[in-house]
């Protein structure tokens, strides 16, 4: 605005520029107030709890709170040789309270994670400490079990001193920090999580690929057919889209069972013998087939909405200029559909990578994904901090993909139905 317009006054004598600014501000506040209820609701009930998952996943206050005096006394101990008498005394006093409150078991389990064999040593101490006399606790404790003379056990206690830990994240990728504080891999037979991560990405990738290969032709057909036919065929896409996930999973369980229709069909065609029906459910095949069918509409719809906007005259122009149908397709049509491909693929990939219900029902042991592991720790082992850590690792992956999606397509372009 030039300096002259600043001089124009409104009827109340306020400069126009200021008055407009005020109106603008009012409108901003009005717009924000409309969004505020939902925003606040989501921040309180959703965003903060997700943040809470993070503090839960690194929380390690349990041992710290159980041995307050010990850790205070350990502050000056360098960890090279056996700790001084004060540490032994503090540990004895802390442990005595735990035994009295019957919470010593928790400490035993926790410290046993840190150093194998700690449990029995602590149990023995719990029995013997009742007869302890005042003074010279170092001698008395070391007399209970010879392992108390081993500085490794004291170092194990000290390692649990910080009230936060990233060990759950290491556990999520089958690693742990060993006695020297180095991060190492767990022994080969116990590496279960990395297999699950790889399998999850693999399943999500192939489901996305299958969905793409199947959705592209039918989206093209739907976009090029006359309206009255395409509307009818669209129902084939939309009906599964609106149908309950569990209903669709149930129908796959019926189809894929050993006496099911798919197997019947294979036997009828002579592909397999009647007494040698393949197991198609409770393994990866079941997961692939069911997930592809369930997620297929999410690929068809964005592809369709992009293809609908491509004028058929472009292909005709390409052909009239001498391109063969194949060349015209790959040089003209295909590049124009890339936004739809990006949207569909990333949508399906994001949905597939966090899938839980279908793999849990038709996946069996070899078809379960990382989500199933999270649910398992939430509901069965109750290791909520580990579940939170794995959930956040998965979330980070999804957010990265979402960020790419946003860069390529823009979240505002999501179309439904």
């Amino acid at each position, binding site marked *: 605005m030039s300096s002259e317009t600043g001089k124009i006054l409104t009827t109340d004598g306020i400069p126009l520029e200021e008055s407009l600014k005020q109106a603008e501000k009012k409108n*901003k506040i*009005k*717009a*924000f*107030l*409309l*969004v505020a*209820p*939902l*925003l606040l*609701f*989501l*921040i309180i*009930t*959703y965003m903060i*709890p997700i943040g*809470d*998952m993070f503090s839960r996943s690194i929380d390690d206050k349990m041992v710290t709170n159980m041995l307050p005096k010990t850790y205070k006394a350990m502050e000056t101990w360098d960890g090279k040789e056996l700790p001084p008498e004060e540490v032994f005394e503090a540990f004895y006093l802390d442990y005595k309270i735990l035994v009295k409150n019957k919470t010593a078991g928790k400490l035993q389990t926790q410290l046993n994670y840190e150093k194998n064999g700690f449990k029995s040593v602590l149990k023995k101490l719990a029995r013997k400490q009742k007869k302890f006399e005042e003074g010279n606790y170092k001698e008395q404790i070391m007399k209970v079990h010879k392992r108390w003379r081993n500085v490794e056990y004291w170092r194990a206690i000290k390692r649990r001193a910080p009230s936060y830990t990233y060990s759950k994240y290491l556990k999520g990728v089958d690693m742990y920090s060993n006695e020297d504080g180095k991060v190492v891999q767990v022994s080969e037979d116990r590496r279960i999580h990395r297999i699950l991560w790889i399998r999850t990405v693999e399943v999500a990738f192939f489901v996305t690929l299958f969905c793409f290969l*199947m*959705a592209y*032709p*039918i989206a093209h*057909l739907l976009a090029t*057919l006359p*309206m009255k036919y395409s509307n009818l*065929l669209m*129902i084939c896409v*939309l*009906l*599964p889209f*609106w*149908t*309950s996930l*569990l209903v669709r999973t*149930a*129908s*796959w*369980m*019926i189809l894929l069972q050993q006496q099911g229709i798919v197997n019947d069909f294979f036997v009828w065609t002579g592909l397999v013998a009647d007494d040698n029906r393949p197991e198609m459910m409770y393994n990866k095949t079941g997961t692939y087939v069911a997930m592809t*069918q369930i997620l*297929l*509409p999410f690929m068809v719809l964005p592809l369709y909405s992009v293809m609908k906007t491509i004028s058929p005259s472009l292909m005709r122009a390409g052909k009239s200029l001498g391109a063969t149908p194949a060349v015209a397709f790959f040089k003209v049509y295909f590049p124009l559909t890339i936004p739809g491909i990006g949207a569909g693929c990333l949508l399906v990939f994001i949905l597939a*990578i*966090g899938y*839980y*219900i279908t793999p849990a*029902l038709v996946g069996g042991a070899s078809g379960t994904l990382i*989500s199933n592991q*999270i*649910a398992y720790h939430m509901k069965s082992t109750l290791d*909520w901090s580990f*579940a939170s850590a794995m*959930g956040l690792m*998965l979330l980070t992956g*999804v957010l990265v993909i*979402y960020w790419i999606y946003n860069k390529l397509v823009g979240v505002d372009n*999501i*179309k*439904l*139905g």
Partner: protein
Amino acid sequence: MALPKYTEPHYRIWHYFYLLICGCVFFFLIAPLFVIFPLSFNAEEFLVFSDGMKRLDPDAFSLRWYKDMIYGTKNPWGLAARNSFIIAIFATLGSIILGTLAALGLSSRHMPYKGLIMAILISPMIVPLIISGVAIFFFMAKVGLAATHLGIILAHIILGTPFVVITVTATLSGFDHSITRAASSLGSSPYNTFMKITLPLILPGVISGGLFAFVTSFDEVVVVLFLAGLDNTTIPIQMWTGLREQLSPTILAVATCLIILSVLILLTAELLRRRSERLRGINR
């Protein structure tokens, strides 16, 4: 799209091959749903087509499992259906109110930080359900709403609002704001303008967003699995338990009812979409 007469033979073959592929994919999409219908009328307890059914023998069909669904002993479906409907209706209402207000604010050109706020509002749709489930469970447990209807309703409002926000924002994108200004200049109060002018025009978007929210809530199982106690089982939870333990034909009877429900929802959504396009003057 009939082929012109001058089409070369090899292209013609390719074209029929392409139609065949499309046919197979459509079959793959829709056929699994149709397995459920006949099997839910099975007179026997097994989930395979009996010989009688293959011969279309009337005795092989019965309404046994539908009766079991409604009158069966220790019947969990009645309670589950009631819970499902109560939760879904309230969750839909909550999602519609919060989502429509937010969409109105978001579509105002004065809205600051539009991109960031939009990203937050639709995040429940992007974050994998299992993570949402864990986070919402922690929150509800902390405030003492785990295993209550209210807790599940709130959780479903979280999951349902993104759909309302998206559909209503889309409807508002073709909205001519000069009509509301015209109404105001003619002396209408903002409330009156909203009720008489804005709402009727965006109603198709609101309802179709509401349908999405309803279906999301009605079909949601992951979050409810974490939140539900014995008193708040829903239809999906019952189906989940049934599918895990033993696949009984009663589940198929329920599934058939759910498919019929989804056909009704599909028809409503389709009618609304067309009406909305007509109102916004989009002709395709």
